[in-house]
């Protein structure tokens, strides 16, 4: 881990025409190359936070902003949307909201074209995105006729072609079957470990993603309610429950057993860790 690539200080935001702030006193930093998992109930403010990170707030969405968001050392209000689009990539929850072109190739070209890049660079970006994401054989296919998992990969590829440093993925597996979910999560992990990208991922499927994360952010009613390493956050099971959230299954089981006096040196998060930890009690 090196220096922070995202710094959020005392961020508050209220949508125009509303009294209640959608975000209140948010303070956080993301280190270069970190995977942060964002959890929170519907309406906790996750989408508003994304918009603050990619500059839609304050540039396009009307409302009152307090505090500041620095991306790559500069405040978002001092950077244009197109500058920010090259730094922060946002992948929508449903790929069909994002995908619109007739071929995957056009889909991948769209972002770079909008940046006004030279043709040779656009072609290079398409190739790079297709190779990195593993969708080369899909380039001439029509996105609408691909499987859910393939569509999600194309949606990530289209953002990848912009070469952002930071990727935000909003529930990337929510419409996918287990096998496609695994593939997409493996892809996200590879983009992080092999390419050093900073990743913010929101998911309700805690069991599938907890082990990927370096840090956990818990949002509740527009605030950061909990923040820390996965083991630290997921061992505070009672606090999570009070926020209407749950820990991964293994952590929940450990929590129940701890009520009967059983203790764990390392709080289990994955099924494998659970098997190890509970096996030792047997």
């Amino acid at each position, binding site marked *: 881990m090196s220096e922070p690539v995202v710094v959020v200080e005392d961020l508050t935001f209220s949508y125009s025409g509303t009294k209640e702030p959608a975000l209140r006193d948010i303070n956080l930093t993301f280190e270069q190359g970190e995977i942060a998992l964002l959890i929170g109930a519907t309406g906790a403010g996750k989408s508003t936070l994304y918009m603050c990170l990619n500059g839609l707030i304050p540039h396009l969405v009307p409302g009152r902003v307090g505090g500041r968001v620095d991306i790559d050392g500069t405040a978002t209000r001092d950077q244009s949307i197109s500058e920010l689009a090259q730094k922060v990539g946002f992948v929508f929850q449903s790929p069909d909201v994002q995908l619109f072109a007739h071929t995957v190739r056009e889909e991948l070209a769209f972002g770079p074209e909008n940046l006004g890049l030279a043709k040779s660079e656009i072609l290079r970006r398409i190739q790079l995105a297709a190779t990195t994401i593993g969708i080369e054989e899909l380039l001439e296919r029509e996105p609408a006729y691909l499987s859910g998992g393939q569509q999600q990969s194309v949606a990530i590829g289209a953002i990848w072609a912009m070469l952002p440093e930071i990727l935000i993925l909003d529930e990337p597996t929510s419409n996918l079957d287990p096998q496609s979910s695994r593939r997409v999560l493996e892809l996200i992990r590879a983009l992080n470990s092999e390419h050093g990208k900073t990743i913010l991922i929101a998911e309700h499927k805690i069991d599938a993603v907890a082990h990927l994360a370096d840090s956990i952010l818990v949002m509740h009613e527009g605030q950061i309610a909990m923040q820390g390493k996965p083991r630290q956050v997921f061992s505070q099971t009672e606090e999570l429950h009070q926020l209407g959230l749950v820990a991964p299954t*293994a952590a929940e089981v450990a929590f129940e057993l701890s009520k009967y006096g059983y203790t764990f040196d390392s709080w289990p998060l994955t099924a494998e860790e659970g*098997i190890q930890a509970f096996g030792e009690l047997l």
Partner: protein
Amino acid sequence: MASEAIIETRDLSYSYPGGISALSSVNLEIRQGEFVAIIGSNGSGKTTLVKHFNGLLKPSQGHVMVDGLDTRTTRVSELSRIVGFVFQNPDHQIFAYSVWEEASFGLKLHKLDAETVEQQTTEALQAVSLDELRDRHPRALSRGQRQRLATASILALRTPVLVLDEPTTGQDFLSRRQIMALAVELHADGRTVLMVTHDMALVAEYATRVIVMKDGAAVCDASPNEVFKQDEVLKSTGLDLPPVAKIARGLRAYGFSDTPLTQTELVENLLTAIRS
């Protein structure tokens, strides 16, 4: 609970226009009062199958019988009195200008008297905790609330069979629990519940029977625990064991022999095993 078939498919095959085969020779018998999970990867034919149960799709070959009626020769309006269908995306279903209007629309279509419409709509909205928002515009609801509204508009019809297509996709933990508590209540009331899902924890916790679809065929039809034992089926369909079953299986190496389906069962079984 009665056990006669409320839905039966006989050699059901279906091809989408253009000839792409989506279902091939599916033979199933769903009995009244069952809680059935239909699982399988994207594109395996799950949704195509359940769309035959309310006549949205008609078989290319074979027959689908719903409460003794052949769906080929029965009007969708007739079938909709028997099978209620809650779509995955509530926005595909919702169209009215108020919560109450949306929830009562189907009843009005069935030409029921005003008093019955009022009573059944109110009950359905109460069941999903939306009765206090009856004058609200559906667009002013959260996604979770819209999902519940879509469910209420089907509940109001009091159909003996309910089909829930991916009922918990994109829902947070509390909404998920609320939706499933409602499904359990309806099932306890004697209704037949069919749930299409990818969520294996949901399957383990709630279903009494699991139908696994692959390439348009029903490749496995058994209880959750039976299905979870079949590694080959799970592997070939890309399905995962739910976390509870995965942990229980791993613990066999430590002499643990139970097959819990819910987290609570796992904890109870573990406590018993540790103490013995």
